[in-house]
């Protein structure tokens, strides 16, 4: 936000564009070396990625990526590296799914209970990290990574048929008991898409989360404290921010948001937490938050770009092009965006300093004139 403000907007947009072009160039080079035709490859990706079915998938993936990135960005804005978003959302999705599958409630209430449970579990799991940091000085990076592993273990332990697990007859998949229909959230039909391909109903929630994030961070006292801590922890403390409480609170909020990551899929299509439930979204969120500069609008574009690349990579496989090419594109985007934004930031600073210097010089001449 600050950076956006301190550098001309056009420059920032140009930077994002430059990063994208750069990554396309890199990808083209890799494709050419591997003996594929870059323009037709990109054309195929775009053609495939803009089909209605693909768009539904892109929006749905993007929704989850967006939530993951916001969860990460909350921590990033105060220099808190919540690498544990992954474990937090998996724990949250699993326990919320188990709770939602355990009994049926009237529609409306059922969903709310599941969502609140997910947020509570995510917050609790992240809260451990915060408490460890402020009471024992454990780096949040280390503890949250460890908690990711512990979450994997706990989930595996709990999803056994004699505990929370449920195994459909004749299937080797295992998961929680399916949530009754009263707890589902219907999808939103998408024009032109095949039957059954619908946009997650919870995309609405993602939009709300994005707006809330922006408002809280930029317009509230709490958000100010959070940003101040991120920009300079020592200055924030001197200004009266209670650093410890800030760490715990931020981890709780980040974790609660992380708890929502799996909800669109859980309540929209999966209806149970099983082996097929997507994992690793927390780590994707880190990259997307970076790409989106921790800003909700930036993150929206970054999440959709990521989802588009993921989705359109399917067509590469279909044409016998290794879809790992897309991973190269994604990495190139991330890398160049970091570099380009830094350049833009410096240019912006320079521009400002020049403006200030000009102001001072003008002031000095004015004084001199008055004196003479």
């Amino acid at each position, binding site marked *: 936000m600050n950076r956006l403000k301190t550098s001309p907007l056009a420059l920032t947009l140009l930077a994002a564009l430059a990063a994208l*072009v750069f990554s396309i160039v890199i990808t083209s080079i890799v494709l050419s070396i591997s003996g594929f035709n870059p323009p037709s490859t990109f054309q195929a990706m775009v053609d495939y990625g803009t089909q209605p079915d693909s768009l539904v998938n892109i929006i749905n993936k993007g929704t989850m990526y967006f939530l993951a990135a916001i969860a990460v960005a909350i921590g990033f804005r105060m220099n808190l590296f919540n690498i544990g978003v992954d474990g937090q959302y998996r724990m949250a999705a699993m326990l919320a799914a188990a709770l939602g599958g355990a009994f049926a409630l009237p529609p409306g209430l059922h969903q709310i209970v599941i969502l609140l449970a997910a947020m509570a579990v995510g917050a609790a799991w992240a809260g451990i990290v915060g408490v460890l940091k402020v009471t024992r000085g454990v780096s949040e990076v280390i503890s949250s990574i460890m908690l990711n592993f512990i979450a994997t*273990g706990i989930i595996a332990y709990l999803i056994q048929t004699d505990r929370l697990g449920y195994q459909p007859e*004749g299937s080797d998949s295992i998961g929680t008991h399916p949530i009754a229909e009263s707890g589902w959230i219907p999808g939103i039909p998408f024009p032109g898409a095949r039957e059954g391909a619908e946009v997650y109903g919870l995309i609405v929630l993602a939009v709300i989360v994005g707006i809330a994030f922006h408002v809280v961070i930029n317009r509230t006292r709490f958000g100010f404290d959070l940003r101040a801590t991120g920009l300079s922890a020592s200055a924030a403390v001197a200004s009266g921010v209670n650093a410890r409480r800030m760490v715990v609170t931020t981890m709780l909020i980040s974790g609660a948001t992380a708890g929502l990551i799996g909800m669109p899929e859980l309540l929209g299509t999966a209806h149970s937490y099983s082996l097929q439930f997507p994992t690793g979204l927390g780590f994707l969120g880190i990259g997307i938050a970076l790409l989106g500069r921790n800003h909700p609008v930036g993150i929206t574009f970054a999440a959709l770009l990521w989802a588009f690349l993921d989705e359109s990579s399917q067509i590469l496989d279909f044409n016998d092009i290794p879809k790992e090419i897309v991973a190269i594109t994604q990495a190139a985007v991330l890398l160049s965006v970091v570099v380009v934004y830094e350049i833009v930031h410096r240019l912006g600073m320079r521009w400002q300093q020049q403006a200030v210097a000009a102001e001072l010089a003008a002031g000095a001449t004015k004084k001199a004139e008055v004196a003479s």
Partner: protein
Amino acid sequence: MRRAFKISAVTLTSAMLAFGASACGGKKVESGSGSGGGKKTVKVGLAYDIGGRGDKSFNDAAYAGLEKAKNDLNVDIKDLEAKKDEPEGDKVQRLELLAKSGYNPVVAVGYAYAGALGKVAKNYPNVKFAIVDDASIKADNVTNLVFAEEQGSFLVGAAAALKSKTGHVGFIGGVDTPLIKKFEAGYVAGVKKVKPDAKIEINYISRGTDFSGFADPAKGKTIAEGQYDKGADVVYHAAGLSGVGLFQAAAAKKKYAIGVDSDQYLTADAAAKPLIITSMIKRVDTAVFNFVKQTSDGTVKGGPETFDLKDDGVGYSTSNAAEIDPLKAKLDEFKQQIIDGKITVPSK
């Protein structure tokens, strides 16, 4: 400002150059939609689970069947791989892509496709689908290719008991899924048939939703060493890639091991080779080939199709002649008894 502009102008230009340079060569790429249907040839699609081609086991076996179909039945084939940690939507999309592009039949390898296939099969009633290792999806146009792993495991269990000097053998499962439990059940029954008082070590590498047990050779090795140290002298694994660890332990301890899925004697390291008595063979290739053949014949049926000892859908390998030949007579006798129904092998 101006500098940044210059930079991006430079990148753009070089992008164009790269485009221009590459426009001369390189394969053209299709976008997938509507490119099917033109020719009359049968096109067979196959979607892998994580791991894909080159796993020297399950997925490779499926590909072998597909390739055989291509050669023997003169069909076009297309195989698509899955990504790690992908959501179900991707699997749906993959099956859709194949069905939509005119691939019929379509084979989904692995039970991870169950949910996705359930959705896609409904939308393409005229496409014949098959799913390997899953019996939970029931539809007229879905054939469930399942195996009597317990029967094959019974035979290698008998082999282990016959080979064991200590009367003490072991089993390592990758993850405690029902599928792997079938291997265990058959194996235990086979061992007990030969040596009713034999001791059997049973360990699983991971549990529940933690699937790392299928891809953790280090843990596989540790567990195998533990079993050997306790006195077991033959260990059977059903643990995917983790089985590599078993073979390493066997080579180090000079004890016997038994492979799984495909004939692992052929692909193991030289040090472990002579110690791999046999492997429990699961003919995914046969299943895939048969399914493709039946669809082209028009004889394909929906619902479960079980591959067992009777039709050589499962079995044991004999490439390590030095070790297995002395046991063959006895094992084949058991095999006949199972086929005849004189021995009923438990699957749980």
